[in-house]
């Protein structure tokens, strides 16, 4: 970090900026309500609407239908597959707005004021990353509570402590995406281009992954894209922690990939921030 913060605690500026974002969030009841509602709507409407269980089970003996489901989705209940996928989708949607908050700060002159103080550029970026991550984690909590209430079928060998793993994975994917979207907006003074860019990226990110459908059933080219998408690794890890049987090898691969990915992207965003935040 550039410049020592004279006399104060080492992370003082970073914590203050994070606190500012958090206060703006919880002091606004409507915003808080929307944060709660958004993942619930996703899960209830999408999760219950796409009843793939009924599709697979149509006209076949129930025994065979269960086998088909289990082979394709790793669980007999499509809602459980879908609900766990919603964790990554919610993280994606919440973090995507971090980029806009930095444009807003620039427009209002707040960013210029902060840049003229000794606070490090990394703190400016990380305060927003951490805010988005905390906000997403709160939503993940709501999803988990609701999913269990709506009848999530846990996998064999499930232990409540596995849920901590879910939060770890959510943390990594949030760091990745909020850094990515911040990076795109670093020098922007206008909404239009970053907004279009986010819209462009959103659908491919969501559908070229295993959120709704397992990779194994995808055509080869799509599977190739999906298998580099960090969302796929997020879902894989989340499902291992909840609805599937835990496979140590696969889980380690997921965590390593996500860890590396988030580390790379966040370091890159800090590097670019130091270089380009001052225009």
């Amino acid at each position, binding site marked *: 970090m550039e410049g020592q*913060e004279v006399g*104060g605690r080492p992370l003082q500026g970073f914590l203050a900026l994070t606190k500012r974002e958090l206060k703006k969030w919880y*002091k606004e009841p409507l915003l808080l309500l929307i944060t709660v509602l958004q993942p619930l709507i996703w899960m209830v409407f999408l999760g219950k609407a796409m009843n793939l269980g009924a599709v697979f089970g149509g006209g076949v003996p129930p025994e065979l239908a269960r086998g088909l489901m289990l082979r394709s989705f790793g669980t007999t209940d499509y809602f459980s597959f879908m609900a766990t996928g919603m964790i990554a989708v919610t993280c994606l949607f919440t973090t995507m707005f971090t980029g806009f908050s930095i444009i807003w700060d620039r427009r209002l002159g707040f960013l210029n004021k902060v840049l*003229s103080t000794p606070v490090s550029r990394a703190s400016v970026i990380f305060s927003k990353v951490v805010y988005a991550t905390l906000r997403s984690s709160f939503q993940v909590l709501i999803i988990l509570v609701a999913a269990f209430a709506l009848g999530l079928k846990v996998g064999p060998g499930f232990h409540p402590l596995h849920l901590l793993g879910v939060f770890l994975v959510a943390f990594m994917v949030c760091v990745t995406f909020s850094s990515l979207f911040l990076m795109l907006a670093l020098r922007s003074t206008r909404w239009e281009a970053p907004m279009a860019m986010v819209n462009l990226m959103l659908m491919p990110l969501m559908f070229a992954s295993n959120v709704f459908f397992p990779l194994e059933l995808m055509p080869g080219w799509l599977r190739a894209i999906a298998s580099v998408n960090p969302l796929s690794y997020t879902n894989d890890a989340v499902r291992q922690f909840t609805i599937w049987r835990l496979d140590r090898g696969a889980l380690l691969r997921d965590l390593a990939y996500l860890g590396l990915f988030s580390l790379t992207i966040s370091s890159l965003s800090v590097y670019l921030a130091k270089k380009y935040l001052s225009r």
Partner: protein
Amino acid sequence: MREMVRAEELTRVFNGLTAVDHVTFGVREGEIFGFLGPNGAGKTTTIHMLTTVLKPTGGRAEVCGYDVVKEPEKVRKSIGVVPQEYTADEDLTGYENVMLCADLYGLPREEGRKRALELLSLVQLEPFKDKRVETYSGGMRRRLELACGLINRPKVLFLDEPTLGLDVQTRASIWEHILSLRENFGMTVFLTTHYLEEADHLCDRIAIIDHGKIVEEGSPSELKDSLGGDLLTLECEGEGVEEILRALEGVREVKAEGREYRVKVTRGETVAPLLLKALGEKGLTVKRLSLAKPTLDEVYLEKTGKSLRDQGESPEEVIKQRVTLWRARR
């Protein structure tokens, strides 16, 4: 005397457009120095470069002896900035906003708390410190920004359009606050304004900036004197008035239009009685006499060839200013 701000050939080009064009100036310790110019003349861009927010594309600048490009951290620690916009968070209270600034400067908690309360009472916001900023008026917001800019006890304070959009009374009270800072803390102040009265009232020295270039520099009275002094206008009937006027000491120029004479003099108040006496001795009566001191307005007109007006601004700038004006009116 030590120079707290030094800019040499400072230049900033945005996509082929030169916003600040080889500007050279210095601000002495304890001085209030003003950049006077129309919107879009390059004032804010200059402040942004001096406060390390923008990188110069040419030339160099030092603040408190530190290079703004090579030692930005040292510059940032020794300056305070009050931007043109209202940057305080509306959702937070006044106190929370000042504390945020204290944390950005890394002040120890207790020290920050002490200074925040001191500054809030200095700008007379103590009774409102726990109210959300969205309830503040324009003048209160500006004073809050001032408190934030002073939290690190800066050696140089940068004020960008400190009274933009404020009413006359509020403007006068902000001026008093700025003047008292210099008086009480010996602070060096660099400000920009497009209000002539403001530059005249506050600044020890002024640089007139237009199209990114400094066209004139000096103290307000020097600038006014550069116009050739005061103007006496008199009405007098009779012969030989012009000759008598020209012979008087301190008279620089006489223009006659019928019975009306326009006389440029060095100091109006000393020349006027002499003039009356000289004309009286010849038996000539002055029917009417008026004395006009030159205003910065005239200096401005003379130097830039036009009155203060809006120039081509970026849409971003326009929006920022609209937001500021909108908030100031509440």
